[in-house]
């Protein structure tokens, strides 16, 4: 099966001039046109929408089914927090693999610009009694991990700032990005401190927008252009309690055990033995620069102990495509990643969409030369839900 079409709205702080239906219609229409299908070809729809409270409407996706499919179409709504977009894609793949559908539209929608403050909504993901004494928020949750990474592996505040500056610089080539900022490391370090050691410009923005993918069985592809073939995909779920994950046998709180397991399965399905050499592009779902480094070891880009050196190489242009495209190894986040746009429900799907565009050679100014194989990650909950998806230019088994 393959991703036959990709559609994305621009990502903005708020789309004041577009209704929810407008956003979904635009993204789905673009994806269907890209694939060479029309709505009548769609057998099922999978919608990805994360916390309802962000949009202020319960089950907002139900109002826009008609924007994606003909009347009566089978419909599923997925909500796995930050991983919603990739979970929706995986559910769509399941329907195709099961033979339930030949053509599925998966869309992810975010309207968090309608929320007065997203943090108040995000705070309700934590226990209102046991955890309120710890001032636990999505930001302090990430800060806890960042400080643990610094203590255990030797990362510094400068690593977080330099990675953020790199992502923002890469996003300058992405016209869909919400933020276009050419930042120096010093400018990032001078931005307001949210929760030590995380600064404002090391954090993702609040963004709105919609992303859509058309997933089709191999024998239903119109054959009018390159597609992104799915070579492997998997997801795993972890315990909620962060305290239980500090030093358990399966891995520590910053080891991203679920991403490691998901990547192992996806790589095995794709026949990838040495990801650092066999993958051309990596799109990582990490809403903070400090969170991004947690994904490198599970994806096989470096060991946990070598993480700071790998980040140094990324920053200096000696690895991962460097800050502007040079350096050996997979190019990391050529789109700029979630720091450039973070429509929560859609962010993980955007990673897949960007990988699909890369292996098709259709990523515009952010295209990585010669990209043939890419991996996208999804991350949700308290680094609790992880997914990995491997896409390639050639079908499994070769052309």
């Amino acid at each position: 099966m393959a991703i036959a079409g990709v559609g994305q709205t621009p990502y903005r702080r708020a789309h004041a001039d577009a209704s929810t239906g407008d956003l979904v219609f635009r993204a789905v229409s673009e994806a269907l046109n890209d694939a060479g299908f029309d709505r009548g070809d769609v057998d099922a729809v999978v919608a990805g929408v994360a916390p309802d409270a962000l949009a202020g409407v319960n089950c907002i996706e139900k109002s826009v089914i008609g924007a994606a499919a003909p009347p009566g179409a089978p419909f599923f709504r997925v909500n796995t927090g930050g991983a919603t977009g990739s979970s929706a894609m995986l559910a769509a793949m399941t329907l195709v693999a099961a033979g339930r559908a030949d053509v599925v539209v998966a869309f992810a929608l975010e309207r968090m610009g309608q929320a007065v403050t997203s943090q108040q909504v995000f705070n309700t993901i934590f226990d209102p009694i046991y955890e309120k004494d710890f001032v636990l928020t999505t930001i302090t949750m990430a800060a806890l991990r960042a400080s643990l990474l610094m203590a255990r592996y030797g990362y510094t505040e400068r690593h977080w700032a330099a990675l953020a500056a790199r992502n923002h610089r890469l996003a300058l080539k992405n016209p869909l990005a919400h933020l276009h900022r050419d930042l120096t490391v010093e400018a990032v370090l001078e931005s307001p401190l949210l929760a030590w050691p995380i600064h404002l410009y090391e954090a993702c923005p609040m963004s709105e927008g919609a992303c859509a993918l058309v997933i089709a069985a191999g024998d239903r592809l119109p054959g009018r252009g390159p597609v992104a073939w799915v070579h492997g995909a998997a997801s795993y779920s972890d315990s909620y309690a962060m305290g239980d994950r500090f030093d358990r046998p399966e891995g520590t709180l910053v080891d991203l055990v679920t991403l490691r397991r998901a990547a192992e399965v996806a790589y095995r399905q794709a026949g990838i033995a040495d990801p650092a050499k066999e993958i051309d592009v990596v799109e990582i779902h990490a809403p903070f620069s400090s969170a991004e480094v947690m994904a490198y070891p599970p994806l096989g880009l470096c060991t946990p102990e070598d993480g700071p050196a790998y980040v140094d190489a990324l920053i200096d242009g000696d690895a991962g495509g460097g800050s502007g495209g040079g350096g050996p190894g997979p190019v990391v986040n050529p789109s700029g990643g979630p720091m450039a746009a973070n429509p929560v429900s859609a962010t993980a799907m955007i990673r897949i969409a960007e990988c699909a565009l890369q292996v098709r050679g259709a990523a515009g100014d952010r295209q990585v030369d010669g990209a043939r194989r890419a991996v996208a990650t999804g991350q949700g909950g308290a680094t609790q839900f992880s997914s990995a998806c491997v896409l390639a230019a050639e079908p499994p088994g070769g052309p």
Partner: protein
Amino acid sequence: MPACFVDGLAVEIGPPDPARNLTELIFQTVRRALDDAGRDIDEVDSVVIAAHDLVDGRSLSSMVCAPAAGAYLKDEIRLGDDGAAAFSLAAARLEAGEARCSIVAAWGRASEGDPDAIARALFDPITEGPFGLTELTVSALRASQWLGRHGRNGSADSARAAATERRAAAASAHPGAARRLVAAPAGVRPPAAGSGMASPPPAVGAAPWPLRPGELPCWADVAVAMVISDRESPVRVAGIGHGSEPYSPGDRDLAGLPGLTLAVRHAWPSQRAPGDVDIAELDGLTLFDEAIAAEAAGLATPGEGLRALAADGRINRSGGSAAGYCAPAMGLTRIAEAALQLRMPERSTHRYGGQSAPGDASDGGADCAPARSARWALATGSSTVAAQTHTAVVLEAQ
């Protein structure tokens, strides 16, 4: 469709239990389903759950609830949809070869929030909110339209009364469900367990016209879990179908559910007809939703849905929404009820408010007991907004 079987199930429908929090309720229900299946958690390689944040009272409630449903370091996905849709996706994972044994779980505790307030949030706050739309008021509009089309003769009213009476009787006969619940009007919390309150008459005006109090759902705390796998068992999943309605109530023919008709048509094996059904567990918020669902499912002709509910012993032996209701658990509850009735007289470990299941030797439950020869069962689940999306599941006794 590839082999997919019901291994085990557990259902809890009851009043609020102050001794257990939500995760404990989920964990214990899933544990009982695994025990019913004779499975260890290590044998499970997939978890699919259905839950709504606003019902659970916290955003991304699966963060804390998914592990309780057995999802620790497993492939888990949560749908913000009806539990029957979760069942369908879990079965699709088996059909695709992605998993061999899956937990499906859904829950909702009506005691945790005002169902009407949650339902109001389903509608656009600018264009629809001012009209006071809720799931229940749309159901009332549906009843009004149905009555306008089919209820102009006197027999419709007697059928309505008979259907109400049978529904209440079935719910009362259902071990532990309505019998232990106060038949609370919509939006009113049932009393805590052990409060000693008898069932008071519903408050005047609680039922939006033309609905009557006895036609309303009985709000309850519900948790349901099923274990399905590719291992042969007494109940096989024979077909699954889906359908949907337009979003806006104004764009629908409220006296019908064409999306459900589509779902049922897709679910039935090609060589069978809906009329072959021996057991039908139909999800519906109110009596009229159940009657219209019976018509949409092909179990009654248009206009005969109430009469079918009153007289057709195949339909909703469990008592339907009168035996306890809270979205998004009801579609999976209907599937579990159907599976349970198919596999009787095997003893089940599932529990209704602490009492024995139908089929237990100690229990009367005559109205719940289907014919021993029952082979085909249809179960349906409908989801927001106002039964907009549907899942139909056909089960076959082996």
